[in-house]
């Protein structure tokens, strides 16, 4: 441990700690900075985190300094403040200051730091600025406003050190220096939008989110990406009932500070036109009041003959499917349909968020042929929860002879052949738990209101339990989780999952 004094305050930190982190700890807020990023190498180019270390003649940058026992450091004295104020002025002299039309406004490092220690009075005439490019498309998801760039090199280091793809570079020198991609190269890797997250200014912005919403109007909900089995922790940014974007949420056990571009686009499904908004019975749009009768009319008094679940649904819902099924079989849907290529970083080949949930609940999984055979072998109505098993021709054919109740979110092949269609909630519209590929139980929370008259799936399933004469239909999601605690065993408490998730039986990595 090293004991040091920062701004008159004594603190103790482990040996080897960066002075940048020690200062942040002592001050309660980070030093001003653009280029420092905890997951990237030290560049030391923005020069903003200057501090005075007693005994050293010059100011030094904290990010490239390791603490020493007995160090006496000043971060707010006149000398340091003058330096950082002037360096910030340098960052701004060729900046267009186009905050009113910049997407980064509201979450911009330059803006924030300027508010806390800017000079407020420009000494540069507009005509004297160095002009650089505007709105250059550099990849499928990212757009570059050259003139806003402060050349912190975070994006360059990200592409070199994290993805290893090296698309970005800094070209030319002096105040003509510009970030960009090499000729003929696009910023096109699975993680390109992370450069938007780490860009401290409005130079790299998301083509998807650009001009959609002012960031200070957004509300945030913590959630889990439903795009693959990795289960990256995300923040859903939403406003007025609409999801605008997903951002990675820090979880060192799962995704660190990153997430993939495909994961970021999963929210699009929530906004799609073909969402199911009302219960449908025999082709007629109805309301929830008529649902119990419609389902009962299919001969479900003694329950369903088969229930087909899906690895896209929450653990609680899988538990309810089991209860609802009683002695009837529960199948896990089409296991092979959601596989694709994986990459070395986060993206898993299994593009479903909760296959481990099916495994835990002991729900069978198989391919289309196996599922079709299972369907043929049972009698009574079939309940399908989520997914689109009828997209498989063999499954669709075998379902043709059955009375099907479909609880889903989109108008798809399965909805088309169902006798009763019940609109459920997408993941952003409900709460639940996914188990990721490492067996980590992670909770996602509701961020936006449900589409149309859709309902939370657990309520619909509880209702179906009543219709089919099952006792003990749960009255709350909490009750379902309490029951699941026993299934998982150990010291699991699903009603109090830690923020970074919980792995039954200990940490996996």
């Amino acid at each position: 441990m090293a004991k040091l004094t920062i701004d008159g305050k004594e603190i103790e930190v482990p040996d080897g700690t960066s002075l940048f982190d020690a200062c942040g700890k002592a001050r309660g807020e980070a030093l001003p900075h653009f280029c420092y990023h905890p997951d990237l190498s030290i560049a030391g180019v923005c020069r903003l985190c200057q501090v005075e270390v007693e005994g050293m003649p010059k100011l030094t940058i904290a990010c490239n300094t390791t603490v020493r026992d007995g160090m006496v450091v000043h971060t707010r004295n006149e000398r340091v403040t003058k330096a950082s104020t002037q360096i910030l002025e340098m960052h701004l002299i060729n900046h267009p200051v186009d905050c009113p039309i910049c997407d980064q406004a509201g979450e911009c490092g330059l803006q924030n730091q300027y508010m806390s220690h800017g000079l407020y009075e420009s000494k540069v005439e507009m005509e004297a600025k160095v002009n650089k490019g505007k709105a250059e498309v550099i990849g499928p998801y990212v757009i570059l406003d050259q003139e806003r760039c402060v050349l912190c090199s975070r994006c360059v280091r990200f592409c070199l050190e994290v993805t290893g793809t090296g698309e970005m570079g800094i070209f030319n020198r002096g105040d003509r220096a510009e970030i960009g991609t090499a000729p003929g190269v696009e910023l096109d890797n699975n993680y390109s939008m992370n450069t938007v997250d780490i860009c401290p200014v409005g130079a790299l912005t998301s083509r998807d989110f650009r001009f959609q919403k002012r960031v200070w109007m957004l509300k945030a909900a913590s959630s889990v990406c439903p795009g693959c089995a990795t289960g990256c922790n995300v923040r859903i940014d939403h406003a007025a009932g609409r999801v605008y974007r997903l951002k990675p949420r820090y979880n060192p056990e799962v995704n660190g500070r990153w997430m993939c571009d495909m994961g970021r686009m999963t929210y699009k499904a929530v906004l799609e036109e073909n969402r199911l908004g009302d219960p449908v019975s025999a082709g007629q749009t109805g309301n929830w009041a008529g649902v119990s009768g419609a389902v009962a009319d299919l001969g479900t008094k003694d329950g369903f003959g088969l229930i087909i679940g899906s690895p896209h649904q929450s653990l609680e819902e899988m538990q309810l499917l089991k209860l609802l099924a009683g002695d009837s079989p529960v199948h896990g849907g089409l296991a092979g349909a959601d596989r694709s290529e994986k990459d070395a970083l986060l993206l898993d080949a299994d593009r479903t968020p909760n296959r481990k949930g099916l495994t835990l609940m002991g729900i069978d999984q198989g391919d289309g042929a196996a599922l079709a055979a299972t369907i043929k072998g049972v009698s009574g109505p079939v309940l399908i929860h989520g997914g689109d098993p009828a997209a498989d021709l063999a499954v669709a054919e075998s379902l043709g002879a059955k009375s099907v109740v479909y609880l889903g979110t989109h108008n798809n092949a399965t909805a088309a052949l169902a006798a009763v269609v019940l609109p459920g909630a997408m993941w952003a519209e409900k709460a639940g738990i996914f188990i990721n590929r490492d067996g980590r139980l992670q909770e996602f929370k509701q961020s936006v209101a449900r589409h149309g008259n859709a309902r939370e799936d657990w309520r619909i399933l509880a209702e179906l339990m009543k219709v089919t004469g099952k006792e003990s239909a749960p009255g709350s999601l909490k009750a379902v989780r309490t029951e699941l605690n026993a299934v998982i065993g150990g010291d699991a408490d699903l009603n109090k999952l830690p923020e970074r998730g919980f792995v039954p039986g200990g940490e996996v990595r």
Partner: protein
Amino acid sequence: MTRSNYNILSARFGRPDGHLLSVYEAEGGYKALRMALTMQPAEIRDVVKEAGLRGRGGAGFPTGVKWGFVPEGSEEVYFFVNADESEPGTFKDRFCLDYDPHQTLEGTIISCFAVQAKLAFIYIRGEFGWLVDRCQAAVDEAYAAGYLGKNILGSGFDLDVIVHKGAGAYICGEETGLINSVEGLKGQPKIKPPFPAVSGFLDKPTIVNNVESVASIPWIINNGSEAYKKFGTEKSCGTKLWSVSGPVKKPGVYEVPLGMPFKEFFHDYLEGMVEGEELKAVIVGGSSVPVLPADEIMSCNLDYESLMNAGTMLGSGGMIVIPESSDMVELIQVLMHFYFDESCGQCTPCREGTGWLHKIVKKLRRGEGTAADIDLLGHVCDGMAGLTICPLSDAAVMPMRSFIDKFRPEFEALIQETAPAEPVSRWPRGEQE
């Protein structure tokens, strides 16, 4: 061309055959190497340390001390000879390599033995194309004679030397910029610490020495540290090459002992100004050091300490003599254009500051400046000095500040008396609608 009685470095300067191995050997060349190879590497380091040889590239850091920073027992050490001589006003290293490449090469081999480097690079400024050929020819001769390669002169010491041509960036003369350049990266300085002596080329201990420093080594080994210290002052030992430009009667490269009074050097060697010119000022150590007006430089001695006390630096020894007829603002514009053009753009204060200084000086020269602009130059310098990875930012600030300090009336003369002190709004009241 040198005209001096001192020939530690300049014995063969100006001679058409001085670059040949046969000539060098006939005049005692590679004797020092034979002697060095019988010594312990640490002994050589001590001799150089005791001789008080200081880095001749500009910083003046003791060469032997620098060698000592290589961690004991390092397996893989690299050595770079910095021949990226780009400091405006400086043209001494090219004399060394042009007229006497073998002396630098012998110094290189001895230095490599001292730090136990097995591979050395001679990094030559891109514009010095012909020097690449000259050095390569010398290296080829040395290989053929057994001074390079495996088991040099039967000592068991191996060394390869690669002559590397830069692409002409000033910043590659900064030692870590130079290393980056050879590594194939963008020519810009690396962040320090770690310093190259600990982690440099390919993250291995690396020593970068200026040509003139390296060229001094064979003489020091041959004659010993005491003999070397007989030249110069107590803290500024040995002789120094001065490259002198400007309207003096005899510009050129001179080798003189450190500590010589400028007055003596100016009158006896340079023979004063050309007819019709008066001395106005001198930039004594390359364009990056503060300028001294005539009366101040006339009382200086040419050594590290005297010049430091006078408020400037010995730097690289690139002496720029400025006559009364020169416009100091025009001169500083030329210099500010240089630093603006050569800034690598990595650190914000330098990237933005060098361009800003250049713009303000240009504005003053256009006659559009105000009194506030002169103060603004000082303000910009404040935001640049001592705040960057490498000294290029300071190298721009030092001349800029000193030109204003020493020649402020010339700046003020460019300000139109009618010009407003504060910039007016671009949209005066009433024009907004």
